[in-house]
């Protein structure tokens, strides 16, 4: 009787150990983003300041290997099972099977995932997708500054990545580590945000002043501000052009989390 109790107790300890490991991994893979405010380049009608509360963000985008682990326990999101409402036919396009990412790099960000799949993945980890404003807030940091948007080299770096091919199969963590300790906001893949569908660049919103017209017409010289606008415009325009069940090979995601008191 007593031996059995001890045995059970040991199981509990092992489980406890496992749980604590998995919890500590979660926190190590995320960093705290400090509260702050900034004026986004697009998205607000009158260039209003946006306030960002402190939150946690994944250091890296979610990788193929991590996504595979998720699929093991969430069969409804496997390539052959997912409902078309939640992902189009190119979902996990290069995967060779439901639980096989084929020739893709295990440490590369998972791409060809829909917004629904990304959202579900994060919710399963007790996390969520970052909001667009949160994502852009973190993305404006370079190695040393919270807001490097007006730095010419920073913008050139971002724009030169836009021109590169196939960065989606590179491993995570190989681009620069930014001010917050976050990698790969630029230089690897584009990322889903929770409210990606809050963009109006299609002329639908009459209040939207930052149309492409303002960006492409009549600028004689290209200065840092133009580059900065152009880089952000590309991201916002891309977001404005996608739907929640779309999947493309240069679009991945990472998760965020509220800071609980």
């Amino acid at each position, binding site marked *: 009787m007593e031996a059995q109790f001890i045995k059970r107790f040991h199981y509990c300890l092992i489980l406890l150990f496992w749980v604590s490991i998995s919890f500590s991994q979660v926190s190590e893979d995320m960093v705290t983003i400090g509260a702050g405010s900034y004026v986004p380049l697009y998205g607000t009608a009158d260039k209003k300041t946006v306030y960002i509360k402190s939150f946690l963000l994944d250091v890296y985008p979610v990788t193929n290997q991590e996504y595979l682990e998720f699929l093991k326990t969430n069969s409804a999101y496997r390539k052959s099972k997912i409902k078309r409402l939640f992902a189009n036919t190119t979902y996990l396009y290069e995967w060779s099977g439901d639980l096989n990412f084929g020739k893709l790099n295990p440490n590369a960000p998972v791409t060809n995932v829909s917004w629904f799949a990304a959202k579900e993945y994060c919710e399963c980890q007790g996390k969520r997708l970052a909001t667009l404003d949160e994502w852009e807030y973190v993305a404006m940091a370079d190695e040393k500054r919270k807001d490097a948007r007006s730095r010419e080299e920073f913008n050139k770096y971002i724009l030169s990545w836009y021109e590169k091919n196939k960065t989606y199969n590179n491993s995570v963590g190989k681009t620069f580590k930014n001010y917050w300790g976050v990698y790969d906001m630029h230089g690897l893949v584009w990322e889903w945000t929770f409210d990606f569908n*809050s*963009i109006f660049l299609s002329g*639908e919103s009459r209040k939207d002043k930052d149309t492409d017209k303002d960006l492409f017409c009549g600028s004689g010289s290209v200065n840092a501000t133009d580059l900065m606008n152009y880089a952000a415009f590309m991201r916002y325009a891309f977001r404005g052009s996608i739907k*929640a069940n779309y999947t493309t090979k240069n679009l991945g995601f990472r998760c965020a989390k509220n800071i609980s008191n």
Partner: protein
Amino acid sequence: MKKIILLVIASIFILGCNSKEEKQNIKDKPITDLSIYNLPEKWTNQDGKDIELKDLRGKVLVMVMIYTSCKSACPRLVADMRNIESKIPEEYKDKVQMVLVSIDPTVDTPERLKDFSIENKMTGNQWVFLRSNEENTREFAAVLAVNYKKISPIDFSHSNIISVFNAEGELAFQQEGLGVSYDKTVSKIKEEAEKVE
């Protein structure tokens, strides 16, 4: 010991993160892949009653996303909905559900939606007003390809889209923009209502 038990319970929850999977249908036929009835979220209607989208299954749905404090585009969208409804032949009326979904769940309480329905003379059984939390609303908008953003404490910008769903909850038609002709929308509604037994 209590803590250990709690952790064990917590770990079971972590392991079992597939609770959304394979919900059994109330109705006989399985829900199709493209059906909005795959969405599990709960909504509240203008009478304060909790419903799931699935409860609307079997009817043709005409849906729009609005917010009641809206002064510019929404009144016209609401007018469009009313005009569309008035064009539906009598024989199809009980096969069609007109649904207005709020993008402003904080302001649009069930009471507010009720008042709005009375002000706009949309009190018949064919009218349903729905609200949920911010997250579900965002997801629902994603399905409808409706974009919206809060641009001030009381104002949103949003796409002006009216969507028609068949009885299975599959998107059949979308009308985009303000002041466009709704002839196509009406004929699609009739076509889909014809199929409903």
